[in-house]
Structure formats: C-alpha cells, structure tokens
C-alpha cells in the first residue's frame, strides 16, 4: 500500500538532516509500529507523510498505491493526500476557535467524498453518522458541538483525533504518539476504537515511545528508529525487548 523509499529530510531552510534514509513497506491489513528515543525522527516521519510544509524531503520517495496506481505522494498537497485516504492523528492536535467540531468534520468528510466520487452527506445524515462513530469511542454527545479542540483536556484531544479517523475512514492512518497524555482508561478506549477501525484493506502506522500502547494495539511489525534510521525490524516481541533493555543495545 505504501512504500517509503530512502527518505532523507530536514527542516525547511535548515541544514541538519533529521531522516537519513528511511525504507519501509506497509501492506494492506498490516499494523506497523515505530519506536525510538526522543529526537530520533519519529514525528518528522509522520509529518512528512502528511505533507507538513515545515519539512523538506531532500531525497527519496513515498509511493502510495490506490486503485492499482502508484503515486509519489510527495508531489501532492496535504489536502490531496487526505482525499486519497491518508490520515495523521496528531501528537499535538491544534485548536480551531469557534469552529464547531461537527461542522469541521462534515466539511472534511464531504471534500473526501467529492474527490472519491461519493455522494456528499447533508447535516442530518452526517449527524447520525458521527453519532454512531462517537458511540464506538464512548464519547460524550456534547463533544461535537464544541469548537475543535478548544478547552479540550489532553485525553479529549486524542479521542477527537480517533473520532476524526473513524469519520474520515482512511486507508492508511498514521498515529503519532496517540498514547501520550492518556490515562489507562482513555488508552483502552482509544485503542479499542483504533482496533475496531482495522480492516482488511486498511493499514496503520503507530508511532510510540512506550511499549504500553502495543499491548492494546498489537502490531504485526515493530521498527526501531534511531538517529533518523531504522536500525531493527521484527515482530511484536521486539517491543517487549525494548521495554526490558531500552534502546542502548540497538545502537552500534
């Protein structure tokens, strides 16, 4: 579904290379996890996949396959990537004062529908649709009438990310440290939500600091990212090894 090939990247206008040749292939139906210490480039990778203008890719490509066609998504604008079914759950979700969560999500949902040739939803149908997704995530009904992320607690913001993912129904979702700032109950609810969204044709890339989340969202593959490079890739047991031994043994 997605092939990340030899990606080198830096902050736009900066000199320091953050990613130093990342290679990663993810097939439909798979869940991959990326773990690594602070500053290893995990969040940079997620932002590059979504198209954040702050970063510049100096080398490599990211091929995304949909409808039997491969596109280098680095050529696409962020909104075009979203419309193709790529989603990023933000580590730090952004507040949009005054903009009702439901209005925001319906606008986004309909943009994606329009692009994919599906029928747009009116307010009433969308309301029903979003409520069904909220039930899935055990979210309070009042949530969607509040402005996007404004005065939300850390846990609420993260849950809102997963709600957006549920509503927009992406083919490829990147979850950037979705577990940070969550208490154990929220973690369970968020993970349950993510697991329910798993489908044969979809793939997920989970970025995390801690093995803890991977007890709930069980990955097929675990990759260790250190200093801008993937140094080791194995099955889920790798996460447990890191939990036990830390990262030092992986640095050669």
């Amino acid at each position, binding site marked *: 579904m997605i092939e990340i090939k030899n990606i080198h990247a830096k902050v736009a206008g900066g000199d320091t290379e953050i990613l130093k040749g990342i290679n990663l292939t993810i097939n439909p139906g798979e869940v991959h996890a990326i773990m690594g210490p602070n500053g290893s480039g995990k969040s940079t990778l997620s932002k590059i996949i979504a198209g954040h203008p702050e970063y510049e890719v100096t080398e490599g490509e990211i091929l995304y396959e949909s409808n039997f066609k491969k596109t280098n998504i680095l050529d696409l604008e962020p*909104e075009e990537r979203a419309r193709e079914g790529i989603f990023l759950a933000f580590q730090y979700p952004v507040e949009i004062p005054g*903009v009702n969560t439901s209005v925001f999500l319906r606008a986004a949902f309909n943009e994606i529908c329009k692009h994919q040739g599906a029928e747009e939803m009116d307010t009433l149908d969308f309301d029903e649709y979003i409520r069904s997704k909220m039930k899935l995530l055990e979210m309070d009904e009042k949530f969607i009438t509040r402005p996007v992320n404004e005065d939300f607690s850390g846990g609420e913001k993260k849950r809102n990310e997963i709600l957006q993912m549920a509503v*927009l129904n992406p083919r490829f979702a990147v979850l950037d440290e979705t577990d940070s700032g969550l208490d154990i109950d929220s973690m369970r609810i968020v993970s349950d939500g993510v697991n329910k969204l798993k489908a044969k044709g979809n793939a997920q890339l989970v970025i995390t600091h801690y093995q803890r989340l991977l007890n709930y969202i069980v990955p097929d593959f675990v990759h260790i990212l250190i200093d801008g490079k993937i140094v080791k890739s194995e099955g889920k047991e790798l996460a447990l090894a890191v939990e036990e031994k830390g990262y030092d043994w992986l640095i050669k």
Partner: protein
Amino acid sequence: MSKITEENLSNEDTIAANKLSSREYKYGFYTDIETDSIPAGLNEDIIKMISEKKKEPSWMLEWRLKAYRHWTTLKEPKWPNFKYGPIDYQALSYYSAPKNFEEGPKSMDEVDPELIKTFDRLGIPLSEQKRLTGVAVDAVFDSVSVGTTHQSELEKVGIIFCSMTEAIQNHPELVKKYMGSVVPYSDNYFAALNSAVFSDGSFCYIPKGVRSPLELSTYFRINASGSGQFERTLIVAEESSFVSYLEGCTAPTRDENQLHAAVVEIVTLDNAEVKYSTVQNWYAGNEQGVGGIYNFVTKRGKCAGKNSKISWTQVEAGSAITWKYPSVILQGDGSTGEFYSVALTNNRMEADTGTKMIHIGKNTSSTIISKGISADESNNTYRGLVKIMPSAENARNYSQCDSMLVGNKCSANTFPYIEVNNSSATMEHEASTSKINADQMFYIMSRGLDMEGAISLIINGFCKEVFKELPMEFSVEAVKLLEMKLEGSVG
C-alpha cells in the same frame, strides 16, 4: 467576568504574508456617463447651489448654512488610531450627478439605461422585470438617488421609502421633526460637513403597527472622480413597527483618495424595532496603500420609545480609512441596543471602528460583539464606549471584542471605554487575540480541505456570532468577500 487570552502571539512559525496579485476588486469599474458637477470648493454659495439644484425649501437651506458655519469653527479630529494624508476640502466637488437629473428620478423606465446597466453589473437589478424580490432598493449614484424599487407595494401598507430629496419635498413635517434629532449638525466635524453639503440618501418611515413586508435597502455607488459622497439616511419606526434595512457600497479603483462622509439616523418609538445591516466594500486602495475611500461616517440610533430595539450589524471590508461608530442611545425604559461587527483590514488599510451604547432609561440592555481581522500590513482598532447614566437603573451590557491577526506585520488594538454612573448596572467584558498560524492551516488541510476552505472555516468560526445576525443572502456575500480579501494572506 473578564477573560483575556493571547495565543501564539510570538509564534514565529506563522508563514509570512505571501501576497497574490489575484486579489482583484471586482467593483472597480467606472461608468462613462455625462455628468453635471458643480465647481470644486466649499463656501456658502456652493451650499446654496446644492440646495437650489435640489429645489429645497428655505428651512432646509437655513439648516445647511447653520451647519456650515458651525463646521468652519471645528477642527478635524486627530484622536483616531490611524494616519492619512491631508484632505483639501476646497479641492472637492460637492455635487456630481448624471446629466439632466435635476428633476429627480420618476419611474424606472425613465432612468438612463447606462445607470441601470451599472447597477446590474453591481448585482443590484433595478428594472421592473429583474429587480430583487423581497428587497426594495434605493440606488444612489454619486450625489443622487437614481431610483427606488417597490415603492407602490410599500405605499399600500403606508411605508414611505424614497430618496431624501423627495422626502424633503413631499414629507417636510417628518424630515423637520426627525432630521438632526439623533445626530445634530454640531455633533462632530464630519457630521457638520455632511449636514452642510449632503446631496441625497434614503428616507424611510414605517407607520404604527406595520411590519415591513420587504427588506429595505440602499446601495451607494461612487463613480465620478474628484468628488466625494455625502449622503444622509433617516429611518423612523413608529410604535410597534419593524423593519430590516440593508446597506451596500462600492466605488471605482482609483489612485486618488475619495471622501465619503455620511450620516445615518434611526428613531424607534415604543416597541418598535429596526435592524440595520451593512456590507461596506468601498475601494480600499492597492497593496502599496495608494488610493481608496476615506470613510468617515456617523451612524446613530435613538431608542426613544420604551421596549424598542435598534440593532446594527456591519461587515466592514473596504475603504482605505474607516472611522465609524454606529451607536445607540437607550432612552426608552426597557430598550435594547445591539452592535455586531466584523471589520477586516488587509494591504495597508486602517480601521478605527466600534460603537457607543448610552444607557439613559431603566432596564436598558446592550450587546456588543466585535470581531477584528487584520492581515498584511494593516491596522485594525476597536474603539467603544458603554456609558451608564445615573437614571439607568438595572442597565446591562455585554461586550466581547476579539481580534485575529493574519501574518506578522499587521496590528490590532482594542480601546474599550466604560463609564458607569449607577451601581445597579451589570457589565460584562471579554476580549481575546488570536492568530491564524501555519499549524492551524496544516491541521485543517490534512483533513482534506484546501487553503481556501481552511481560511473560510476559520473565518466563519471566528465571525459566526456576527454572521448569524445578517440576513441570509447578505451573510453568504459577506463570507465570500472576506475569503477573497484574505486569500493569499495566509500560508
């Protein structure tokens, strides 16, 4: 209760203003039409000439002259928070009208087709076949009203809706009674100037117990160069009547600055309500700040009767300079004043705008919602006064002033003045400043909306308390106007 938040004010990651030359002003065209203008200059003879052209009764001329003499004793106010070049009042022509207009408009069939075409192009069809349903329009072109639609329909319910010139001739008793009763000619520099030289405007009278079946509106168009526009609008709502009034305005793209100094007066008697909405889109000058209208306007309503209500809603998106404080004098017990405003400045525009709520009667209440958006290198100021007089038992005010900055070179200021002379008053004030930043844009775009959609979403969210007060068609137009102005300023 006071909540002041400053978000990301030092956020350096805001993408620098990246201007697009595509931000065109689509009303910037000029109508080539033969005009009848009086020579430039301002003195008593000029005022007599204007009055003569309008075939006014002597009392009107006397009033103009009194205003003029008072004006000569005044100085241009220097307190607004903006700078502008000196205005040479002797270099302006104070009257410019399409040729042969002295008789005034009769029926729409007699109006010059060039003028009809102009208003068509502005989206204000005047002819019988094409005119807007549900909205009566008085179309003002430079110094004269060229026509008023739906008059006979309104007459049936007793509503008088006509140009000010006609009102002075046909309804002198009403004009004498109310003109200057809310904004006296001595009120301020620009009101005095207007009182001396005003050339036309709209007059609207809603009799007792009548709810206007149509929205009434005035469309102001400046066309001639080397002139200004000085119109006066007077709205009188008798007991238990209601009218919703709309106002729009545009001008050609020019390198010179043109002066617009208008006066609007509203009077509501017992239980009457007037809702006045404006979308101001005068030419604002180019990116370097060359050209544009100097907009110095005095708008005030008086809730003279008990339980009456005046509501101002404005979307200010044009003019090089805006100086405007639509106000309400809450004289009748239980009366209500409202001010809902969105003021957007971009390029080098400067706005100093807000409101005054003067509480005199008992149990009076007022609401102020102001949203200022500044982009590029513009300067946007809210200035407001809430005054509770000793007689105003149990007065209430709620004020909310929010500013939004787009880019790093613009500025926003808030000057809220509060004077309370009765301890039973309840006052609430909230203010906030925020910034559209790159992270917000990226967040929204990563969900599938393009840049335009993202700006529109943010602006709609920021301004929604004001937009919901606008009549439906107006609100759609207002959103489009703001989007167009901000395109290229973000990201």
